[in-house]
Protein backbone atom coordinates (compact mmCIF):
# COMPACT_ATOMS: atom_id res chain seq x y z
CA UNK A 1 0.00 0.00 0.00
CA UNK A 2 1.48 3.43 -0.95
CA UNK A 3 2.34 5.84 1.87
CA UNK A 4 -0.43 8.26 0.85
CA UNK A 5 -3.02 5.50 1.34
CA UNK A 6 -1.65 4.81 4.84
CA UNK A 7 -1.96 8.51 5.67
CA UNK A 8 -5.50 8.84 4.29
CA UNK A 9 -6.63 5.67 6.06
CA UNK A 10 -5.12 6.49 9.46
CA UNK A 11 -6.25 10.13 9.23
CA UNK A 12 -9.79 8.97 8.58
CA UNK A 13 -9.75 6.53 11.49
CA UNK A 14 -8.33 9.18 13.85
CA UNK A 15 -11.33 11.33 12.94
CA UNK A 16 -13.85 8.48 13.25
CA UNK A 17 -12.46 7.75 16.73
CA UNK A 18 -13.86 11.05 18.01
CA UNK A 19 -17.26 10.31 16.42
CA UNK A 20 -17.59 6.76 17.75
CA UNK A 21 -20.09 7.42 20.54
CA UNK A 22 -21.51 4.06 21.62
CA UNK A 23 -18.46 2.18 20.39
CA UNK A 24 -16.50 1.73 17.18
CA UNK A 25 -19.37 -0.32 15.71
CA UNK A 26 -21.45 2.87 15.40
CA UNK A 27 -19.01 4.26 12.80
CA UNK A 28 -18.73 0.94 10.93
CA UNK A 29 -20.93 2.22 8.06
CA UNK A 30 -18.40 5.00 7.41
CA UNK A 31 -15.47 2.55 7.58
CA UNK A 32 -17.31 0.50 4.95
CA UNK A 33 -17.64 3.60 2.75
CA UNK A 34 -13.90 4.33 2.92
CA UNK A 35 -12.31 0.87 2.95
CA UNK A 36 -14.69 -0.99 0.62
CA UNK A 37 -16.26 1.64 -1.65
CA UNK A 38 -13.60 4.35 -2.00
CA UNK A 39 -10.21 2.72 -1.44
CA UNK A 40 -11.19 -0.89 -2.33
CA UNK A 41 -8.80 -2.24 0.33
CA UNK A 42 -11.15 -5.07 1.35
CA UNK A 43 -14.25 -6.69 -0.14
CA UNK A 44 -17.81 -6.56 1.15
CA UNK A 45 -17.54 -10.17 2.39
CA UNK A 46 -14.27 -9.43 4.21
CA UNK A 47 -15.92 -6.46 5.88
CA UNK A 48 -18.83 -8.46 7.35
CA UNK A 49 -16.53 -11.37 8.24
CA UNK A 50 -14.37 -8.95 10.26
CA UNK A 51 -17.28 -8.08 12.53
CA UNK A 52 -18.36 -11.73 12.93
CA UNK A 53 -14.81 -12.85 13.75
CA UNK A 54 -14.39 -10.17 16.43
CA UNK A 55 -17.73 -11.05 18.03
CA UNK A 56 -16.88 -14.75 18.17
CA UNK A 57 -13.43 -14.09 19.67
CA UNK A 58 -12.72 -13.08 23.26
CA UNK A 59 -12.05 -9.42 23.98
CA UNK A 60 -13.52 -6.04 23.08
CA UNK A 61 -15.57 -5.84 19.88
CA UNK A 62 -13.41 -2.92 18.66
CA UNK A 63 -10.93 -5.59 17.55
CA UNK A 64 -13.03 -5.94 14.38
CA UNK A 65 -11.14 -2.83 13.24
CA UNK A 66 -7.84 -4.69 13.64
CA UNK A 67 -9.22 -7.59 11.58
CA UNK A 68 -10.18 -5.18 8.77
CA UNK A 69 -6.70 -3.65 8.86
CA UNK A 70 -5.17 -7.13 8.81
CA UNK A 71 -7.18 -8.12 5.76
CA UNK A 72 -6.18 -4.90 4.00
CA UNK A 73 -2.47 -4.84 4.80
CA UNK A 74 -1.39 -7.61 7.20
CA UNK A 75 -0.13 -7.10 10.75
CA UNK A 76 1.06 -3.55 10.04
CA UNK A 77 -2.42 -2.65 8.78
CA UNK A 78 -3.99 -4.10 11.93
CA UNK A 79 -1.71 -2.12 14.23
CA UNK A 80 -2.08 1.17 12.33
CA UNK A 81 -5.90 1.25 12.11
CA UNK A 82 -6.38 -0.05 15.66
CA UNK A 83 -4.05 2.65 17.04
CA UNK A 84 -5.79 5.31 14.96
CA UNK A 85 -9.28 4.32 16.13
CA UNK A 86 -8.20 4.14 19.80
CA UNK A 87 -5.82 7.05 20.38
CA UNK A 88 -8.11 10.13 20.26
CA UNK A 89 -11.03 8.52 22.16
CA UNK A 90 -8.70 7.07 24.79
CA UNK A 91 -7.07 10.45 25.46
CA UNK A 92 -10.44 12.16 25.69
CA UNK A 93 -11.85 9.48 28.04
CA UNK A 94 -8.90 9.80 30.39
CA UNK A 95 -9.14 13.60 30.56
CA UNK A 96 -12.93 13.55 31.04
CA UNK A 97 -12.75 10.90 33.78
CA UNK A 98 -10.16 12.94 35.71
CA UNK A 99 -12.15 16.15 35.31
CA UNK A 100 -15.29 14.44 36.64
CA UNK A 101 -13.52 12.59 39.45
CA UNK A 102 -11.92 15.82 40.74
CA UNK A 103 -15.36 17.50 40.77
CA UNK A 104 -17.47 14.55 41.90
CA UNK A 105 -19.22 16.57 44.62
CA UNK A 106 -20.33 19.29 42.22
CA UNK A 107 -24.09 19.45 41.70
CA UNK A 108 -23.68 19.28 37.91
CA UNK A 109 -21.41 16.22 38.06
CA UNK A 110 -23.77 14.43 40.45
CA UNK A 111 -26.75 15.39 38.27
CA UNK A 112 -24.94 13.95 35.24
CA UNK A 113 -24.33 10.64 37.03
CA UNK A 114 -27.87 10.35 38.39
CA UNK A 115 -29.50 11.49 35.14
CA UNK A 116 -27.49 9.13 32.94
CA UNK A 117 -27.74 6.00 35.14
CA UNK A 118 -31.17 4.79 33.95
CA UNK A 119 -30.20 5.50 30.33
CA UNK A 120 -27.11 3.31 30.71
CA UNK A 121 -29.28 0.43 31.91
CA UNK A 122 -31.79 1.02 29.10
CA UNK A 123 -28.93 1.01 26.61
CA UNK A 124 -27.72 -2.37 27.89
CA UNK A 125 -31.22 -3.82 27.40
CA UNK A 126 -31.21 -2.37 23.87
CA UNK A 127 -27.80 -3.88 23.08
CA UNK A 128 -28.91 -7.33 24.27
CA UNK A 129 -32.11 -7.04 22.23
CA UNK A 130 -30.27 -6.00 19.04
CA UNK A 131 -27.74 -8.82 19.42
CA UNK A 132 -30.52 -11.38 19.90
CA UNK A 133 -32.51 -10.00 16.96
CA UNK A 134 -29.49 -10.19 14.63
CA UNK A 135 -29.55 -14.02 14.81
CA UNK A 136 -31.78 -15.74 12.23
CA UNK A 137 -34.78 -17.79 13.37
CA UNK A 138 -36.37 -17.91 16.83
CA UNK A 139 -35.11 -21.11 18.49
CA UNK A 140 -32.32 -19.19 20.16
CA UNK A 141 -34.70 -16.83 22.02
CA UNK A 142 -35.22 -19.41 24.79
CA UNK A 143 -31.43 -19.81 25.15
CA UNK A 144 -31.02 -16.03 25.37
CA UNK A 145 -33.79 -15.75 27.99
CA UNK A 146 -32.47 -18.63 30.13
CA UNK A 147 -28.94 -17.15 29.98
CA UNK A 148 -30.26 -13.75 31.10
CA UNK A 149 -32.05 -15.37 34.05
CA UNK A 150 -28.98 -17.39 35.09
CA UNK A 151 -26.71 -14.31 34.92
CA UNK A 152 -29.22 -12.26 36.91
CA UNK A 153 -30.03 -14.81 39.60
CA UNK A 154 -27.00 -17.11 39.93
CA UNK A 155 -23.21 -16.86 40.03
CA UNK A 156 -22.74 -19.47 37.33
CA UNK A 157 -19.46 -19.00 35.47
CA UNK A 158 -19.93 -16.98 32.30
CA UNK A 159 -17.52 -19.14 30.30
CA UNK A 160 -19.65 -22.18 31.15
CA UNK A 161 -22.67 -20.43 29.63
CA UNK A 162 -20.71 -19.51 26.48
CA UNK A 163 -19.48 -23.10 26.18
CA UNK A 164 -23.01 -24.47 26.57
CA UNK A 165 -24.20 -22.07 23.84
CA UNK A 166 -21.42 -23.21 21.50
CA UNK A 167 -22.30 -26.88 22.09
CA UNK A 168 -26.05 -26.37 21.62
CA UNK A 169 -25.30 -24.45 18.43
CA UNK A 170 -22.81 -27.01 17.12
CA UNK A 171 -25.38 -29.81 17.53
CA UNK A 172 -27.92 -27.69 15.71
CA UNK A 173 -30.34 -27.25 18.62
CA UNK A 174 -30.54 -23.46 18.45
Amino acid sequence: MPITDWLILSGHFLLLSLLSIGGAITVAPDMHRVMVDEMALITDAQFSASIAIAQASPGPNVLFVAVMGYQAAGIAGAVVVLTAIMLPSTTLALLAARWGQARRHWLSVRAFKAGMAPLVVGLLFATGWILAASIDGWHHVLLTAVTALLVWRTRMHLLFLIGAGALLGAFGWV
Partner: protein
Amino acid sequence: MRSETLPASENEGGEQTIAPASPAALFLAFTLLALQGFGGVIAVAQRVLVEQRRWLTRDQFIEILALAQVLPGPNVCNVALMTGDRFFGWRGAFAALGGMMALPLMIVLGVAAAYSQYAADAVVAGAFRGMGAVAAGLILGTALKLASALGSNPMGVRVCWIGGTGVFISVALLRLPLVWVLLVLGSLGCAFAWSRLRAAGVAED
Protein backbone atom coordinates in the same frame (compact mmCIF):
# COMPACT_ATOMS: atom_id res chain seq x y z
CA MET B 1 -5.26 -12.67 44.27
CA ARG B 2 -7.49 -11.19 46.93
CA SER B 3 -4.89 -11.89 49.63
CA GLU B 4 -2.32 -9.62 47.92
CA THR B 5 -4.62 -6.62 47.80
CA LEU B 6 -4.41 -3.47 49.88
CA PRO B 7 -6.60 -2.89 52.96
CA ALA B 8 -10.28 -2.36 52.33
CA SER B 9 -11.70 1.16 52.22
CA GLU B 10 -15.19 2.46 52.87
CA ASN B 11 -16.80 4.64 50.18
CA GLU B 12 -19.90 6.80 49.86
CA GLY B 13 -22.35 3.92 49.38
CA GLY B 14 -21.11 2.17 52.53
CA GLU B 15 -20.13 -0.90 50.43
CA GLN B 16 -16.62 -2.23 50.94
CA THR B 17 -14.20 -1.92 48.06
CA ILE B 18 -10.65 -3.20 47.75
CA ALA B 19 -7.83 -1.57 45.75
CA PRO B 20 -5.81 -3.68 43.29
CA ALA B 21 -2.24 -4.38 44.46
CA SER B 22 -0.32 -3.00 41.47
CA PRO B 23 -0.62 -2.03 37.79
CA ALA B 24 0.60 -5.57 37.02
CA ALA B 25 -2.39 -6.97 38.95
CA LEU B 26 -4.65 -4.71 36.87
CA PHE B 27 -3.02 -5.92 33.63
CA LEU B 28 -3.50 -9.55 34.61
CA ALA B 29 -7.07 -9.09 35.84
CA PHE B 30 -8.11 -7.27 32.65
CA THR B 31 -6.42 -9.90 30.47
CA LEU B 32 -8.36 -12.69 32.25
CA LEU B 33 -11.53 -10.61 32.08
CA ALA B 34 -11.17 -9.92 28.35
CA LEU B 35 -10.51 -13.61 27.60
CA GLN B 36 -13.91 -14.48 29.12
CA GLY B 37 -15.73 -11.89 27.04
CA PHE B 38 -17.16 -13.41 23.87
CA GLY B 39 -19.46 -11.07 21.94
CA GLY B 40 -18.90 -8.25 24.43
CA VAL B 41 -17.00 -7.73 27.67
CA ILE B 42 -19.46 -5.58 29.69
CA ALA B 43 -21.16 -8.55 31.39
CA VAL B 44 -17.82 -10.03 32.45
CA ALA B 45 -16.49 -6.62 33.53
CA GLN B 46 -19.43 -6.15 35.89
CA ARG B 47 -19.05 -9.66 37.30
CA VAL B 48 -15.29 -9.41 37.84
CA LEU B 49 -14.80 -5.76 38.88
CA VAL B 50 -17.85 -5.48 41.15
CA GLU B 51 -18.64 -8.99 42.41
CA GLN B 52 -15.35 -10.90 42.37
CA ARG B 53 -12.50 -8.37 42.87
CA ARG B 54 -14.71 -5.73 44.52
CA TRP B 55 -12.56 -2.93 43.07
CA LEU B 56 -15.74 -0.93 42.34
CA THR B 57 -19.21 -0.76 43.85
CA ARG B 58 -22.22 -1.32 41.62
CA ASP B 59 -22.91 2.43 41.66
CA GLN B 60 -19.31 3.28 40.77
CA PHE B 61 -19.49 0.79 37.91
CA ILE B 62 -22.66 2.44 36.58
CA GLU B 63 -21.03 5.89 36.87
CA ILE B 64 -17.96 4.77 34.93
CA LEU B 65 -20.14 3.02 32.36
CA ALA B 66 -22.27 6.16 31.94
CA LEU B 67 -19.23 8.28 31.17
CA ALA B 68 -17.77 5.53 28.96
CA GLN B 69 -21.00 5.41 26.94
CA VAL B 70 -21.45 9.13 26.32
CA LEU B 71 -17.80 9.58 25.33
CA PRO B 72 -16.55 8.36 21.96
CA GLY B 73 -14.58 5.13 21.85
CA PRO B 74 -15.22 1.49 22.70
CA ASN B 75 -17.21 1.38 25.97
CA VAL B 76 -15.32 -1.47 27.61
CA CYS B 77 -11.97 0.07 26.71
CA ASN B 78 -13.05 3.35 28.29
CA VAL B 79 -14.20 1.40 31.38
CA ALA B 80 -10.77 -0.29 31.62
CA LEU B 81 -8.99 3.03 31.20
CA MET B 82 -11.04 4.84 33.85
CA THR B 83 -10.88 1.96 36.34
CA GLY B 84 -7.11 1.75 36.00
CA ASP B 85 -6.71 5.53 36.24
CA ARG B 86 -8.73 5.58 39.48
CA PHE B 87 -6.11 3.44 41.25
CA PHE B 88 -2.71 4.12 39.65
CA GLY B 89 -3.15 7.17 37.40
CA TRP B 90 -1.99 6.86 33.79
CA ARG B 91 0.13 3.80 34.61
CA GLY B 92 -2.97 2.00 35.85
CA ALA B 93 -4.98 3.23 32.87
CA PHE B 94 -2.52 1.80 30.38
CA ALA B 95 -2.02 -1.41 32.36
CA ALA B 96 -5.79 -2.04 32.36
CA LEU B 97 -6.27 -1.10 28.69
CA GLY B 98 -3.16 -3.05 27.66
CA GLY B 99 -4.41 -6.13 29.51
CA MET B 100 -7.78 -5.80 27.83
CA MET B 101 -6.27 -5.54 24.31
CA ALA B 102 -2.92 -7.35 23.99
CA LEU B 103 -3.73 -11.06 24.14
CA PRO B 104 -7.23 -10.73 22.58
CA LEU B 105 -5.63 -8.86 19.64
CA MET B 106 -3.27 -11.78 18.98
CA ILE B 107 -6.14 -14.27 19.29
CA VAL B 108 -8.48 -12.37 16.96
CA LEU B 109 -5.78 -12.10 14.29
CA GLY B 110 -5.18 -15.84 14.65
CA VAL B 111 -8.90 -16.49 14.22
CA ALA B 112 -8.95 -14.15 11.20
CA ALA B 113 -6.13 -16.12 9.60
CA ALA B 114 -7.91 -19.44 10.26
CA TYR B 115 -11.47 -18.25 9.53
CA SER B 116 -11.43 -18.55 5.74
CA GLN B 117 -10.82 -22.31 5.99
CA TYR B 118 -13.77 -23.11 8.27
CA ALA B 119 -16.36 -20.41 7.50
CA ALA B 120 -18.58 -22.73 5.44
CA ASP B 121 -18.64 -25.53 8.06
CA ALA B 122 -22.17 -26.03 9.48
CA VAL B 123 -20.92 -27.07 12.93
CA VAL B 124 -18.70 -23.98 13.25
CA ALA B 125 -21.49 -21.71 12.02
CA GLY B 126 -23.90 -23.33 14.52
CA ALA B 127 -21.46 -22.90 17.41
CA PHE B 128 -21.05 -19.22 16.53
CA ARG B 129 -24.85 -18.83 16.46
CA GLY B 130 -25.22 -20.49 19.87
CA MET B 131 -22.52 -18.26 21.36
CA GLY B 132 -24.24 -15.22 19.88
CA ALA B 133 -27.52 -16.15 21.60
CA VAL B 134 -25.71 -16.59 24.93
CA ALA B 135 -23.84 -13.28 24.48
CA ALA B 136 -27.19 -11.50 24.11
CA GLY B 137 -28.42 -13.20 27.31
CA LEU B 138 -25.29 -12.16 29.22
CA ILE B 139 -25.90 -8.51 28.42
CA LEU B 140 -29.61 -8.71 29.28
CA GLY B 141 -28.80 -10.44 32.59
CA THR B 142 -26.26 -7.73 33.45
CA ALA B 143 -28.84 -5.07 32.65
CA LEU B 144 -31.31 -6.77 35.04
CA LYS B 145 -28.67 -6.76 37.80
CA LEU B 146 -27.73 -3.12 37.32
CA ALA B 147 -31.39 -2.08 37.16
CA SER B 148 -31.76 -2.88 40.87
CA ALA B 149 -29.04 -0.32 41.67
CA LEU B 150 -31.38 2.40 40.38
CA GLY B 151 -33.48 2.12 43.56
CA SER B 152 -31.21 4.67 45.28
CA ASN B 153 -31.26 7.13 42.36
CA PRO B 154 -32.30 10.67 43.45
CA MET B 155 -34.73 10.89 40.50
CA GLY B 156 -36.88 8.11 41.97
CA VAL B 157 -37.62 4.65 40.58
CA ARG B 158 -40.55 5.71 38.40
CA VAL B 159 -38.58 8.33 36.47
CA CYS B 160 -35.72 5.84 36.07
CA TRP B 161 -38.16 3.36 34.53
CA ILE B 162 -39.45 5.98 32.09
CA GLY B 163 -35.91 7.03 31.09
CA GLY B 164 -34.64 3.48 30.69
CA THR B 165 -37.69 2.37 28.69
CA GLY B 166 -37.41 5.49 26.52
CA VAL B 167 -33.82 4.63 25.60
CA PHE B 168 -34.73 0.99 24.92
CA ILE B 169 -37.60 1.93 22.58
CA SER B 170 -35.56 4.59 20.76
CA VAL B 171 -32.44 2.46 20.26
CA ALA B 172 -33.68 -1.14 20.06
CA LEU B 173 -37.07 -0.74 18.38
CA LEU B 174 -36.95 2.58 16.47
CA ARG B 175 -33.18 2.26 15.74
CA LEU B 176 -32.65 6.01 16.16
CA PRO B 177 -29.03 7.30 16.06
CA LEU B 178 -27.47 6.95 19.54
CA VAL B 179 -26.02 10.47 19.51
CA TRP B 180 -29.47 12.05 19.31
CA VAL B 181 -31.04 9.69 21.83
CA LEU B 182 -28.33 10.43 24.40
CA LEU B 183 -28.41 14.15 23.65
CA VAL B 184 -32.19 14.50 24.06
CA LEU B 185 -32.99 11.96 26.81
CA GLY B 186 -29.64 12.55 28.51
CA SER B 187 -30.11 16.28 28.89
CA LEU B 188 -33.71 15.76 30.07
CA GLY B 189 -32.48 13.24 32.65
CA CYS B 190 -29.58 15.41 33.83
CA ALA B 191 -31.81 18.50 34.10
CA PHE B 192 -34.39 16.57 36.14
CA ALA B 193 -31.70 15.05 38.39
CA TRP B 194 -30.19 18.53 38.83
CA SER B 195 -33.49 20.00 40.02
CA ARG B 196 -34.12 17.02 42.34
CA LEU B 197 -30.65 17.22 43.88
CA ARG B 198 -30.95 20.98 44.36
CA ALA B 199 -34.38 20.55 45.97
CA ALA B 200 -32.80 17.94 48.26
CA GLY B 201 -30.34 20.56 49.45
CA VAL B 202 -27.19 19.84 47.42
CA ALA B 203 -25.27 23.14 47.08
CA GLU B 204 -24.71 24.60 43.62
CA ASP B 205 -21.22 24.48 42.08
